[in-house]
């Protein structure tokens, strides 16, 4: 059972690293395409994996820049969360799972996911304004991050309590 969990944790760690690098590549590709699109507007038709912001580029370069900025910030923050998850998975010790480090990392992850939600909501607000002003078909980012942040926060609080209980158990003679 312990071996199975260890293998699973290692596999999740590898997956988290893959997600992290994937998101870093995504941010880099979007930024690279953006800078290319400054001189070549057609590049805005396919910034990364079919992401088409050409209409916004044609309408107003400032709005286009802000939208690309939102996406770059959003994916960067997601990459950071993936990085924190790799740290979390490497620190988890199955024989003593409740540690101060793990509890703090979980709290950090929940705060960062909440920040992602805030940026996503600001993006959606801006998209809504552009839709009303120029009649663009808005591309909204789903707001489910808030639920994920809430769940991770609750789990982080449970882990903190687990640390206290584990510490008390260790100092019980």
């Amino acid at each position: 059972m312990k071996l199975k969990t260890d293998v699973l944790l290692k596999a999740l760690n590898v997956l988290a690293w893959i997600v992290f690098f994937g998101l870093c590549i995504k941010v880099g590709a979007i930024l690279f395409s953006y800078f290319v699109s400054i001189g070549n507007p057609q590049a805005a038709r396919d910034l990364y994996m079919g992401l088409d912001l050409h209409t916004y580029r044609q309408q107003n370069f400032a709005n286009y820049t802000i939208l690309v900025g939102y996406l770059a910030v959003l994916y960067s923050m997601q990459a950071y969360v993936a990085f924190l998850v790799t740290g979390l998975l490497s620190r988890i010790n199955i024989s003593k799972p409740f540690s101060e480090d793990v509890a703090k990392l979980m709290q950090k992850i929940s705060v960062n996911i909440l920040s992602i939600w805030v940026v996503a909501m600001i993006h959606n607000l801006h998209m809504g304004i552009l839709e009303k002003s120029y009649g663009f078909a808005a591309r909204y980012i789903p707001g489910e991050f808030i639920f994920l942040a809430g769940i991770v926060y609750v789990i982080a609080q449970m882990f903190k309590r687990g640390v206290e209980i584990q510490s008390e158990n260790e100092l019980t003679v």
Partner: protein
Amino acid sequence: MPIIVNLDVMLARRKMQLQELAEKVDITLANLSILKTGKAKAVRFSTLEAICKALNCQPGDILEFVE
């Protein structure tokens, strides 16, 4: 901490070493040291019983409450 553990006093009275007590009550030396140095957060009744039996004393001889 308000509860003081007077284990070293009882050990001196009974002329017993900590290692010997650890063997008699079947607790590791590390855990007994935690108790002796007052770092323990809790003591099981079974442990207290074993220590009192080994040292031939009452729980009050080992545990003391100070304000």
